[in-house]
């Protein structure tokens, strides 16, 4: 038989490995979630306080809420052909109505993959991409001509 001491040592090493992976993955998730939350709140408060309220109620409450308020707004600001503050990451629920609002200081096309919606954008002419989140998955929003990803929208079931 296998010597017990070695087996125990080995099991301990494996345990540590799993624990390490687990910690790494949890830590990453929390960090991401927190980061997204802060950006949403700060951005919304600077723009429209009313939307912030409706957005939060819609995402936090369950489906029993009576008539759904306005769509979830996701705002992206492009400076110098790159998304301000890095790639915008947002989570929405399947069935939500969402509108992407992209302001840009360069002219390009905004393309939401999967839902395949494309709108022109130019300085002073923000692009609005409204859609109903019917397909679950992760979807990239990019500046088509430059091939630059500016947002990453997760639609969870």
């Amino acid at each position: 038989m296998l010597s017990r001491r070695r087996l125990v040592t080995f099991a301990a090493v494996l345990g540590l490995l799993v624990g390490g992976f687990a910690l790494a993955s949890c830590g990453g998730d929390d960090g991401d979630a927190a980061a997204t939350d802060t950006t949403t709140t700060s951005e919304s408060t600077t723009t429209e306080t009313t939307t912030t309220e409706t957005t939060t109620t819609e995402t936090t409450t369950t489906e029993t809420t009576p008539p759904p308020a306005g769509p979830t707004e996701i705002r992206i600001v492009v400076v110098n052909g790159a998304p301000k503050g890095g790639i915008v990451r947002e989570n929405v629920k399947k069935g939500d109505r969402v509108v992407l609002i992209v302001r840009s200081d360069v002219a390009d096309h905004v393309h939401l993959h999967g839902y395949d919606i494309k709108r022109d954008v130019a300085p002073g002419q923000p692009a609005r991409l409204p859609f109903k989140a019917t397909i679950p998955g992760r979807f990239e929003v990019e500046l088509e001509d430059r091939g630059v990803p500016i947002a990453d929208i997760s639609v969870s079931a």
Partner: protein
Amino acid sequence: MIVGHGIGVVRDLPIPAAYFFVGAAVVLAVSFVLLLYLWRRPVLEAHADGRELPAWLSRLVLSRAVRIVLGAFSVFLLGLTLATALFGTTVELLNFAPTFVYVIFWLGIPLLSILFGNVWSVLSPWRSLADAAVWAIERGEREARPVLEWTGRMGRYPAAAALFAFVALELAHPRPDYPRTLGIAIALYTYWALAGMAVYGRDPWTRYGEGFAVAFALLARIAPFAVRGGAVVVRWPFTGLGGADRMRGTLFFVAVLLGSTSFDGFSRSSTWQDLLGNLRAELAGSSQRTVDLATTFLNLGGLAFFVAAILATYLAAVAAAEKLGRIERSLVPDFVLPLVPIASAYLVAHYFTLFLIQGQFIITLISDPFARGWDLFGTADFAPNLAIVSPETVWYVQVAALVVGHVAGLAIAHDRAVAVFQGRRTALEAQLPMLGLMVLYTLGGMWLLTRG
């Protein structure tokens, strides 16, 4: 375009922590139970020959007519892909070539190989073209002889180099699905395949130089079907992976396969995307060419790092096994094949959705491959169902694939260990490094799937 990936409009949601923990627990429990209760003598190689299928079926499957029909069809598809890539629309998703190459070919053929055996031996357009050329030469009463003799000194390194070139295009190039780029790549690869066969002969080049043929042949060793002694046999899955593979370069080849798939997963995570984003922000004032070049180099570095990490961890585990098992010779060739099921599990886990969702687009594209408003088969208006699989199904398939691949890899490594190491106790102890390596790869693969 999706940076770091050939094509794809819907990406997977990261797997929730619960799936990771359940998967990890199953992997650990199964590993220890297997290690203590598995067989004590090698059994896989003895079963690799399987049982012959009825003679008429073998004759039909291996017939010249089937080869000619499938070969001609495949050469036609190669021609169509090359023509659409070079002359069709430059809108990636409306062009036949990108979806055909990155989804139907690169994901579909591995799947067919795992299920049905080495189908590429009759489906390869390059092999078919070479066969036709040899037939034509010999009809002219001349001898079709390779220019150089294949000495085997290069091992599978030419194939590994070819595979690396392909995955570098797929994962490091800034616009891998741009049709013209793809067209040039297809032309270059066609030259590589045909010139290699002309110089070294069809069989050696298919076995050691043509990257796709080598990849599909390796994956086909998992399949419950094989050709043995001119007959089609049915056998237990995975039995084809018993024994050692002493051909040089095999380890490097498998490392490219495994490393590229894991880098593909990592390159789509927010960590890597933000890194690329920062790089682009740094280079905001520079030309598009500079930005593209920098992106390519960063991606190439990432890809090379993942391949190197697979090589390093494997070599370390083998060195530990040699020490524990008190074996003087190198065991590097002995434990390469157990990595094949893990590589195929990675393929399934990472590309399952891409295949199911993006694969549907081929139905539309085949009716109008050049995007000129044609409707050859009446399917031009087919609307792909992008919500065909729920995220839960995807997570379940991903974790299940990795666990199955892990168990298979472990069993194959065990089969080899009991053949290589003397004495039951030594065999058990010397297996621990390989077990640790596989747990590392499986949990690593699962962890990559949890990354958002």
